[in-house]
């Protein structure tokens, strides 16, 4: 027995547990690969102070049958600073290698598993190594590597150039080398391109690469994205903001956010000789006075050596930290998107007539600063309304939904089961028919129905979730954001809502949580854990935009209602004037004018609301503040 027990390499573990990293199925694998590459690319650009420009190119490499059918080549290039030659193999070929794990700083990636895991997945499914081309500057040579991961030893293996990669000289000569080696590269002064070939499945609709890039564009208005999908369709999201977000600051951990195991590890690693020094230097918000109080509470000497702290004493220190009052961590380390840019980003991507945004002041959960931002767009037509016949046919061909109803509900955002039923009924198609078995004529009917059925009632709110500007596309149900949106009462803001359901209406809400450490529920980073402090901030932010939406909708309804009232009267006034003047020969036009005056007076009178004492209240000013954008729908 003992002989069989041996080390498990991290790479090997993940190779067997790929679902933990978001590679559970071919469809998701494609998305995860793109996502990791794009996230890294944007992070790299921002850190170097460069406005990011990203190229994403997905190609089908299989020739249509057999094994290669579901093979895709994913290429992601950025205009970042490039990577130093010796770092390249480690970054892309070693799991858990990165600059982000050991520090507390707001960034997209966190653990440094992502991109190398994507490479490993590609290697496992197609046997093709990861190809990296990186260029630091115009004058210096670029490097081209093809890297495979040795899963047993968690070590990169360079495949090309006899294990040393290929150097590409700068200038014209370089271009020849690029051509010679068949390297894909969009001419740029600096940047990095990663190409991974993997077994995957490309699909449109919910949880797709298209959706991910669209949502990324919303939350990152300073990024330009160019995307070529496997069918050679090009889609570009232009940059709407020309300034980089403020650079987030790195902070030391706050004592409240540290668990016992981490504390022990930190004690082991520290170079500080005494416990007081250790507490002051390793944590934020620990002054000498606070350190002394912790030591007193833990009943250990203030000058006790860090090397001699026993496990028991460490536990005492941990308990003492919880009991000692320590001020909250500095919150200036977070860089929110900002209300103005949220409005710009939403308006750029989501069509609508009313937009509102709210950025909450920073707050703290378990010693980690975080900040919640919410953007809301109202009046967007549903994805089902916008779909063209060609893309509908394409979607139907690609779907693996078993019934038409399921297809409609899963493919189009904000389309509930009710709306799906309505469409199916209107189209006169059988409910349980498989989408693939639809005849051409039936698809025509379906398309007509989708465009004509009034989906406003059946439409549910579309919730876009973000953590540190990265869209979260899966496990919506398990995420604190969805839970808070659902538990917020939207009825008072003029939207319909059943208990425990998302509100109904043509609404898109984007929720962004920015934090030095986003508490994900799993390693695949798809849902945020529901800490009470986070939920409270989420609720407050949602209510803030909700109130503005409510005000807007009330006003809109009122204006409409008032107009209708006045119209009813106006319609009949002319008839009354004519009839009266024909009876008593009074001047018709003069009477009509006077009736109009009374009508105006009457309709405005009816609109004045009275307070408890029967006195008229001043009209509610539609003071929506600055963080609102109203677009005339016409």
């Amino acid at each position, binding site marked *: 027995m003992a002989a069989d027990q041996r080390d498990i390499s991290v790479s090997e573990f993940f190779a067997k547990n790929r679902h933990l990293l978001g590679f559970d199925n071919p469809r998701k694998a494609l998305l995860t690969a793109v996502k990791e590459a794009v996230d890294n690319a944007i992070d790299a650009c921002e850190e170097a102070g460069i406005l990011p420009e990203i190229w994403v190119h997905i190609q089908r490499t299989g020739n249509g049958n057999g094994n290669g059918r579901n093979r895709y080549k994913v290429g992601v290039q950025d205009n970042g600073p490039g990577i130093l030659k010796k770092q390249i193999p480690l970054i892309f070929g070693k799991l858990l290698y990165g600059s982000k794990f050991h520090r507390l700083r707001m960034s997209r990636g966190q653990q440094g598993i992502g991109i190398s895991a994507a490479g490993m997945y590609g290697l496992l499914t197609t046997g093709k190594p990861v190809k990296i081309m990186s260029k630091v500057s115009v004058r210096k040579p670029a490097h081209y590597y093809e890297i495979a991961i040795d899963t047993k030893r968690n070590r990169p293996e360079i495949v090309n150039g006899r294990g040393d990669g290929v150097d590409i000289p700068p200038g014209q000569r370089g271009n020849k080398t690029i051509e010679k080696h068949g390297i894909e590269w969009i001419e740029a002064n600096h940047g990095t391109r990663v190409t991974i070939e993997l077994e995957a499945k490309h699909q449109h609709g919910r949880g797709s690469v298209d959706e991910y890039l669209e949502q990324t564009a919303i939350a990152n208005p300073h990024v330009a994205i160019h995307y070529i999908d496997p069918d050679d369709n090009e889609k570009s999201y232009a940059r709407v903001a020309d300034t980089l977000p403020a650079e987030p600051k790195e902070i030391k951990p706050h004592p409240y956010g540290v668990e016992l195991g981490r504390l022990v590890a930190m004690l082991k690693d520290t170079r500080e000789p005494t416990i007081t020094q250790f507490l002051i230097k390793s944590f934020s918000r620990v002054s000498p006075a606070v350190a002394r109080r912790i030591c007193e509470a833990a009943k250990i000497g203030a000058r006790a050596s860090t090397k001699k702290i026993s496990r028991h004493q460490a536990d005492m220190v941990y308990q003492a930290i919880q009991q000692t009052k320590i001020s909250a961590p500095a919150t200036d380390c977070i860089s929110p998107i900002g209300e103005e840019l949220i409005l710009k980003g939403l308006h750029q991507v989501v069509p609508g007539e009313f937009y509102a945004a709210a950025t909450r002041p920073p707050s703290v959960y378990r010693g980690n600063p975080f900040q919640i931002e919410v953007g809301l767009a109202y009046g967007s037509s549903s994805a089902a309304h916008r779909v063209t016949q060609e893309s509908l046919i394409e979607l139907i061909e690609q779907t693996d939904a078993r019934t038409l109803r399921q297809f409609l509900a899963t493919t189009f955002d904000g389309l509930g089961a009710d709306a799906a039923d309505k469409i199916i009924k209107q189209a006169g198609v059988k409910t349980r028919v498989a989408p693939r078995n639809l005849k051409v004529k039936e698809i025509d009917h379906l398309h007509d129905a989708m465009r004509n059925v009034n989906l406003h009632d059946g439409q549910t709110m579309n919730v876009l979730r973000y953590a540190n500007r990265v869209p979260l596309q899966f496990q919506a149900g398990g995420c604190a954001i969805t839970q808070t949106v659902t538990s917020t009462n939207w009825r008072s803001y003029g939207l319909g809502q059943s208990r425990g359901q998302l509100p109904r209406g043509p609404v898109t809400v984007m929720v962004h949580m920015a934090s030095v450490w986003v508490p994900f529920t799993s390693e695949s980073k798809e849902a945020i854990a529901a800490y009470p402090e986070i939920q409270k901030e989420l609720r407050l932010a949602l209510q803030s935009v909700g109130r503005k939406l409510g005000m807007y909708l009330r006003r809109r309804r009122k204006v409409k209602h008032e107009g209708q009232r006045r119209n009813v*009267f106006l319609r*009949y006034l002319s008839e009354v004037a004519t009839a*009266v*003047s*024909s009876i*008593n020969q*009074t001047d018709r036009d003069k009477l009509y004018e*006077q009736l109009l005056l009374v009508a105006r007076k009457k309709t405005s009178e009816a609109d004045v609301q009275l307070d408890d004492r029967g006195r008229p209240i001043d009209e509610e000013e539609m003071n929506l503040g600055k963080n609102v954008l109203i677009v005339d729908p016409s």
Partner: protein
Amino acid sequence: MTKKKTPLKTASDKDQQTLANLTALADGVVAATRRRRDPHLDIPARSLSNVRYSPRKKIIEMGKNTNRRQLFNLSQAKSFMQTMLVASGATQLIEQGKSTSIRGLYYLLKHTIEGAKEETFAEQSECDPVIEDVEVLLASLREELHLYAQKRGDMVGDIVLLDSGDEIDCSRMGSGGYGIPSIVEPEVIQFKKCNARFVLHVEKDTVWQRFNEDKFWHKHNCLLTHGAGQPPRGVRRLLYRLHNELKLPVYCLLDNDPWGYYIYSVIKQGSINLAFESKRMAVPAAKFLGLRSIDFKRCGLSDSVKIALNDTDRRRAKQIAGYPWFAHKKPWQREIKKLLENGFKLEVEALISREISYVTEQYTPERLKNRDWLD
């Protein structure tokens, strides 16, 4: 009112009065508007709650309740407009000295409202109640507005009258009888000579035909009328005039069901809907000859002529029994109770099952001879 109208030569005093009322109505609207007020009309309510039975006069009279109709009220704006339209239509008719049917008025006033896809009146059923509103509002009869309803009802018997100047002998009308016009005011119809001793009013045309064919009116020296169901105003007004001017008693032969009872009630006391006209139409001395609930047994009718009462009939019968003008009449309470006990109703035609002329030769003469009727 801004300009004084030149008085029309053709208009009678009555017309002048009606025109003055209409003008006052229009002036009210102008005055309210000039003061920036909401123009409104107070229309006497036409409902059971606003009628009162006068035991002294033995007719239904209209109470004092009114419903306010405002122009600047979302739910009333349209009917206000329609009321003014009807008033203007009536003005036009009176000024031109012409009259039209209520359907004619509907067509006269019906047009598309300017700038809307809406019609002033979508259907005649929208126009008719508004006409009644204007009648009660001005306390004018429909005839005074130069309107008439569809002609219904016939008369035959030994009477000579002048209708618009034509002399008509109602004993020489063949099998069709004299069609009672909807306007029977003294200006139109004058009685010239009458030898008849009473009026027999039957419910409908088919029964009337039976009596006419058997020359019942000749044998018994009476006038024979029918109103094709619920009698129209022309018929009721004629019965009133025959009764009051020629002192002829009125007897009714109606079906034995709640509707027959109510026809009698309307002839005798006036209708709830047009209670304001009762004093010019009701004949409180009218008698109910039959059919009675006891007639099934009394006349020995066969089971096959029974028509089962339905829920509506039962409800209506109880409602009628509760009307104040029936409530204190024991014979009527017994009659209605018996109907409910029987559980079936009878049509006058049921008597034919005994013999074709049973109703004219035996039933009616017997009732009259024995003074066997309900009051």
